[in-house]
């Protein structure tokens, strides 16, 4: 057992056994991440396909009927109520029965017949203002189309509403493509971090870590032995989730596979480094889980997983530089949608390598210097 290679294998094997011996530990490594990918992959979407609407139409003319018909015909909109009195509006919005109320006043058709502009009023529930703004955009589109059609019919100069617009990479703007690729990073980070964070803490709690340190094994080998299981589990888990993203969610994988896996490897290496650092500081498993969590939550929020980094204040943007998930999300989204390769993604690789090197070195130092 003097070869360092064999030593590392033996240590890693022992780690694997400690982790996989228990039936429920085995289960939480496999079941929940897959279930989550499926549930969150469908749940987390900014697209609205069921906007609940009430229409308060005081007008009896043709124009208003055509407008209402358009709204009802939209696949994203569900007209739930036709109301007769203004007093009903407040109740419907307050109670969250509808997201918005469209009010067409009694002069609407007459005004349009005269060739003038008539106003339609929308009242939106702003309790989730993002949802309200997306719904507003959908309705704006419907009305713009109708405006163009009407002015074309009259051979008049309509608004040049049609901008020739094209979205690159995610041509139909599916938010699922954005979210599912994000979840790949999120789930592999959660699993890897918890596995490694618990590895040293478990031995500390049981008192076997001190025994390990007094063996002739150099701490660097202990470090590698502890790092390997998390790395391997993360790589396998990441592979499975990426396969599901392609096979189940039909997200196109356009870019370089090498870039994706190099990114995943560096990302996991930094996750393992941070996990071991947490593990080396903590004395109990409880502290390790909570410590991992303490890192995880800000890391996810600052990664651009759900909210763009560009919208953050400058100071907060600086903080995102030390977040490995930020770089990995750029890589995975780029490889999937933009067809990214090593050349394009180079600026994302080296920061993760630095984070990995620093955190692993720090963890190794803490192994030796934190003893009690």
């Amino acid at each position, binding site marked *: 057992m003097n070869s360092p290679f064999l030593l590392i294998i033996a240590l890693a094997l022992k780690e694997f056994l400690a982790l996989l011996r228990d039936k429920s530990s085995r289960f939480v490594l496999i079941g929940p991440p897959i279930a989550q990918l499926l549930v969150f992959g469908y749940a*987390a979407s900014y697209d609205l396909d069921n906007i609940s609407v009430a229409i308060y139409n005081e007008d009896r003319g043709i124009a208003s009927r055509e407008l209402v018909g358009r709204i009802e015909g939209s696949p994203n909109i569900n007209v739930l109520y036709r109301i007769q009195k203004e007093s009903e509006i407040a109740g419907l919005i307050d109670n969250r029965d509808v997201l918005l109320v469209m009010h067409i006043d009694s002069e609407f058709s007459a005004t349009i017949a005269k060739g003038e502009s008539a106003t339609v009023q*929308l009242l939106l529930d702003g309790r989730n203002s993002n949802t309200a703004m997306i719904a507003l955009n959908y309705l704006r589109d419907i009305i713009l189309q109708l405006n163009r059609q009407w002015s074309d019919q009259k051979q008049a100069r309509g608004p*040049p509403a049609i901008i020739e617009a*094209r979205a690159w990479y995610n*041509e139909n703007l599916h938010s699922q493509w954005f979210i599912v690729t994000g979840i790949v990073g999120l789930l592999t980070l959660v699993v890897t971090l918890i596995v490694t964070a618990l590895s040293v803490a478990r031995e500390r709690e049981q008192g076997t870590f001190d025994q390990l340190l007094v063996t002739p094994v150099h701490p660097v080998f202990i470090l590698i032995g502890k790092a390997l299981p998390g790395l391997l589990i993360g790589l396998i888990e990441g592979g499975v989730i990426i396969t599901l993203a392609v096979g189940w969610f039909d997200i196109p994988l356009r870019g370089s596979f090498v870039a994706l896996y190099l990114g995943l490897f560096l990302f996991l290496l930094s996750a393992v480094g941070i996990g071991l650092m947490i593990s080396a500081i903590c004395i109990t*498993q*409880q502290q390790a889980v909570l410590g991992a969590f303490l890192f995880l939550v800000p890391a996810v929020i600052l990664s651009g997983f759900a909210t763009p980094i560009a919208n953050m204040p400058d100071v907060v943007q600086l903080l995102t530089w030390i977040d490995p998930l930020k770089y990995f999300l750029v890589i995975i989204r780029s490889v999937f949608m933009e067809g990214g390769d090593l050349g394009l993604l180079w600026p994302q690789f080296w920061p993760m390598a630095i984070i990995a090197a620093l955190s692993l070195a720090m963890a190794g130092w803490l192994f030796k210097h934190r003893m009690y």
Partner: protein
Amino acid sequence: MTTAGRQRLAGLIRKESLQIMRDPSSIAIAFVLPVVLLFLFGYGVSLDARNIPIGIVVEQPDASTQSLSGSFEKSDYFSPFYFQTIQQAERALEQRDIDGIVWLKNDFARKLFSQPDAVIAVRVNGVNSNQANLTLGYIRGTWLAWITHQAEARGTKLEMPIQLEHRVWFNPAVDSRFFLVPGVVAIIMTLIGTLLTALVVAREWDRGTMEALFVTPLRNHEFIAGKLIPYFVLGITSLFVNFLLAIWLFKVPFEGSLWLLLLTGSLYMLVSLAVGLLISVVAKNQFVAGQIAIITGFLPAFILSGFIFDINSMPAAIQLITHIVPARYFVAILQTLFLAGDIWPVILANTGALLILLAVFSWLVAKKTRKSLE
């Protein structure tokens, strides 16, 4: 309760409180993380795009292209960069230096008012589809405002039969912080109730001290009360601190009544404690308890609660799952109490759902604890 019973309960509460106070990690989760989360959501993240970097390609500069670029520059939504050719702009888009391109071709001025077809072309990076949709909307809005103004200046009138006027209730300034900050309060209480409780109780199983507790004269209900009261106090304290920070620091309006917030907050705290206890009893191992608490407590509170993503647009099967996520009901209550006021139908329906969940989870905990030593 007898005097002895009260003493037993007090003893257990004391032990549990000391355990929280002496461990830096539970202090961090109970006090540090809530503040970090609140600041991140209050100051850090936002769904409201500002200063979107866009490229403007002007192939033949003249007065009209200059005036159009001027409107993009004046808008808070954009910070424009100029390119001579579309190829240069497309390169910048590929390298993510800009998020979108507005392309004014060389016949822009000639075609502007002479033909109905598109005279400007727009490209956006669609990777973040939500952001792309917003960017497209803002570009369209800026363009429409400019062209209307131009038409007026030339004395022609654009035919716009329907004018859309909108009002956003409860959040007229459309500030995403106003719904993110109340939502975070629910997340923080889930953290304390579910994650912290699950871990601490699972540790007793791990170490075998649970069996030791069972052979003491401690009754089942005393045991549960003793375990829960310290976390309950912790959760309510953090609700209070978060509430004060939300209204003073982040200037989120609070339209509802405080007693309702405390009442529904206490109820939600009880539900998440029940979930935490249930996890610990089922898992009996800190690694598993931690994973399950994050996976069934924390992440659903983020994704399935309606905190950010709209529940109505989820597939039916997933909407069904959201019904057993307690955070869903509390997020609805919080957003209503903060932004809309005491709207009884919303409060009562969601409170009722929380009561049902509380009954179900408590029954499960009671069943599992009794059987768990066999």
